[in-house]
């Protein structure tokens, strides 16, 4: 079993990291994953997990991954919204864990929206 001693060591290591992330800094990019019944049923759990894992792996201090309820476009779930510090909002639809990894690399790291996953590029309503 994992021991609490091990956790203590982790505590000291994390504290040693110079900058603890600022959760509500206006310079943060916010990634919001829809986690209502519709989102969860459509596969939001692995999408949210992929975002948190990729962001942790790349140590992106300026990215906050959070969740929200149903935003009313259930047919497009899993839906992920990305809010940038300049007020820009991107809505990604029908997300998967693989797509999430690509959004992290191309959009969150390199600042280039992955157009083909956005709601604007999905033409036929289902």
């Amino acid at each position: 079993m994992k021991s609490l001693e091990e956790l203590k060591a982790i505590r000291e290591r994390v504290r040693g990291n110079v900058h603890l992330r600022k959760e509500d800094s206006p310079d943060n990019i916010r990634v919001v994953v829809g986690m209502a019944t519709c989102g969860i049923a459509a596969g939001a759990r692995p999408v949210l997990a992929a975002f948190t894992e990729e962001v942790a792996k790349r140590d992106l201090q300026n990215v906050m991954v959070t969740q929200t309820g149903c935003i009313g476009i259930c047919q497009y779930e899993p839906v992920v919204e990305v809010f940038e510090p300049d007020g820009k909002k991107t809505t990604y639809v029908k997300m998967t864990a693989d797509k999430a990894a690509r959004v992290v690399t191309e959009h969150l790291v390199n600042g280039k929206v992955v157009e083909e996953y956005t709601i604007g590029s999905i033409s036929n309503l289902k």
Partner: protein
Amino acid sequence: MQELSLNVLDIAQNSIRAEASLITITVEQRTADSFLEISIADNGCGMSEEQVAHVMDPFFTTRTTRKVGLGVPFFKMSAEATGGSFSIVSELGKGTRTTASYRTDHIDMLPLGDMNATILILITMNPDRDFVYRRSLDERIYTLDTRELKEVLEDVPLNAPEVADFIRSSLEEGEAELLGGPAAP
């Protein structure tokens, strides 16, 4: 929902919206009786008797943004389809306990699925709340209590990546032992 652990994730969101500070999730399994019971108990705002009666109805929701609330009906259906049972006990100001029991040998039994993924997401997405996760299989029991972790962590948050990794491996090891690793001491 394709697996019951997704229902658990969904129902626990109701506890979070009910402003619960402590959410206890229990999964109890008895192989010999083909019995599985899942409960989600919270100390949130609770519901009136009338509300409890209503939440089982798919066309009732407290929301004003839409007209359907499918979370509870889905969970109820998953249990009743196996010949199991479903109940909600709630008191205003005290909290709510939702319990679903299953007959695991029924053809309509859904897989429990990845409970660890559900618990990890609940904990890391709501580091200000406390969770107790208790999973038992016959005589073996695994428990994770975030209040114990917080005591050790002090000011370090539960959603720090290193801490999340720790919780993930604890859940994985706990499950492996439960499902037939080395015998519990």
